[in-house]
């Protein structure tokens, strides 16, 4: 009996935060269902969410890794645009879009590595330093692009278009890629040395170092992963809309961060939940679209986003404080 109990306690310790955000998601769905049953039943509401969710997932899930490692990154919202710019510019210049995709993702990884190295080697505050990089990169993009957007209709005729962002029996293809990404990240975070080392480093970096883990390398890799995720998100969005525009990504900055924390990953490092983050993304995405769907004005969105962040924080507090 006591043994069963301890497994139950351990199960809750591991999964409580994810279960919490699943609970919030269910409550939100019930509220929408009661508030606007006819809007909720219409498929186009969910279709809009499905278009938005993959991009947010590519941004949010790598952030879970980074936050669990004890760092934060704001610059991802600009990395998103830099990678998209590289992609769009090369496509416009006649380079094969498949190669452009690879180069765009490589750009994201390189920016992540630079930001991570800057922060880790010089021991900068990741919040402030990445805020600086956020503005700096956005400035670079605006200057390079002359604040002009780039339209790339030609990408539609290439084989990567239907494969990555095409339509599969009414479902956008990117939802499948996002699902594969989530499954990969779940194992990467929980069952792979990379994720396990991230959790040790974020929990107590001195202990991790004493046990022979290269703390700086682990953190820089986490920043690179965020860069890769942002690049994928930016390129996918550019393909979906056939357009790169120089301000793109800024709108996702606060939404992706909100999804991480609403999803049950605590801010202090050492812990994180991939499944929780997916539901965090679900909550944020439905919030963005659902408020309009139930007939309220868009002004309410930010109000409710704020409310749900605070409620989520209070709820997760019930799961316990940081143990030392």
């Amino acid at each position, binding site marked *: 009996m006591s043994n069963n109990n301890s497994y139950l*306690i351990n199960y809750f310790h591991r999964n409580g935060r994810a279960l919490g955000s699943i609970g919030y998601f269910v409550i939100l769905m019930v509220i929408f269902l009661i508030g606007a049953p006819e809007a909720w039943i219409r498929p186009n509401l969910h279709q809009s969410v499905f278009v938005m969710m993959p991009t947010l997932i590519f941004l949010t899930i790598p952030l879970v890794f980074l936050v669990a490692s004890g760092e934060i990154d704001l610059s991802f919202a600009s990395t998103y645009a830099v990678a998209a710019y590289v992609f769009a510019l090369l496509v416009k210049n006649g380079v094969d879009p498949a190669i452009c995709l690879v180069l765009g993702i490589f750009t994201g990884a390189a920016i992540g590595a630079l930001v991570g190295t800057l922060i880790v080697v010089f021991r900068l505050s990741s919040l402030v330093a990445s805020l600086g990089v956020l503005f700096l990169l956005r400035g670079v993009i605006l200057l390079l692009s002359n604040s002009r957007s780039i339209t790339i209709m030609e990408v539609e005729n290439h084989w990567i278009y239907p494969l990555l962002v095409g339509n599969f029996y009414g479902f956008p293809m990117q939802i499948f890629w996002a699902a594969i990404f989530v499954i990969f990240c779940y194992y990467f975070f929980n069952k792979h040395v990379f994720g*396990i*080392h991230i959790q*040790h480093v974020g929990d107590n970096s001195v*202990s991790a170092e004493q*046990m*022979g883990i290269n703390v700086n390398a682990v953190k820089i890799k986490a920043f690179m992963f965020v860069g890769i995720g942002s690049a994928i998100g930016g390129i996918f969005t550019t393909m979906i809309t056939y357009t790169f525009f120089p301000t793109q990504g800024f709108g996702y900055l606060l939404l992706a961060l909100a999804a991480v924390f609403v999803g049950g990953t605590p801010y202090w490092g050492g812990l994180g939940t991939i499944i929780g983050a997916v539901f965090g993304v679900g909550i944020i995405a439905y919030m963005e679209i659902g408020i309009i769907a139930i007939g309220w004005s868009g002004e309410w969105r930010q109000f409710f986003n704020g409310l749900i962040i605070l409620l989520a924080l209070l709820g997760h507090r019930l799961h316990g404080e940081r*143990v030392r």
Partner: protein
Amino acid sequence: MENIIELDNVTKRFGGITALNKASLKVTRGEVVGLIGDNGAGKSTLIKTLVGVYSPDEGDILIRGKKVNAWNALKARESGIETVFQDRALTPQQSIVKNIFMGKELRYPFGFIKEKEQIFEANRLIREIGFTSKLINAESPVGNLSGGERQGVAIARAIYNKAELIVLDEPTNNLSLNETQKVFDFVLNVKKSNRSVLFIGHNIYHVYDISDRFVILDRGEVVHQLNKNDISTPEELMKIMRDTIGAH
């Protein structure tokens, strides 16, 4: 006797402070070496240099007679040196099993972790060390454990890795009598299996009881090395320590 590890004239500075000054020390197979010294004598610096957390500014480190370069914590562990640090080096939000295998996870190809095997081994180690509470198993978070139990996890890590040299930094601090005895039993078991222990302690009586040889450290220098045969009581050891420190 084979030298497991040897520090040869090792100096370590932090800014303008010389924490370790031309310190030499060796541990041979099957012996228990007690390292003693006052607060600030450089015991922690010596240990952390020995196990690769700090890299020496001058001097050499030799493993089984061979000089090593770019010494670090991972290399130390791969050379068969395990350390039970004073702060236990645990990550309290993680499970016992993750802590036991921290940095040396059992892996499949491509870095995926053999989770079931790790949990099985961790549960075996927990029983071997003798955790009393039935509520504790390999997947319990370390943060819920008492000080003695946490020390047990740190020791389990050293046991699993079958180290040739186990460095114990103040292992009996804040432990109950019963738990202290468990640490002593552990040290004796290691010695019996012809492996070595470097035991660092404040409590001269603890160090005296358990060690074959004593190294006295003062202001970053090794000032005395004594065999147990040279002294008859812990009081005598205490007196030697006081006199050398005073004279130094």
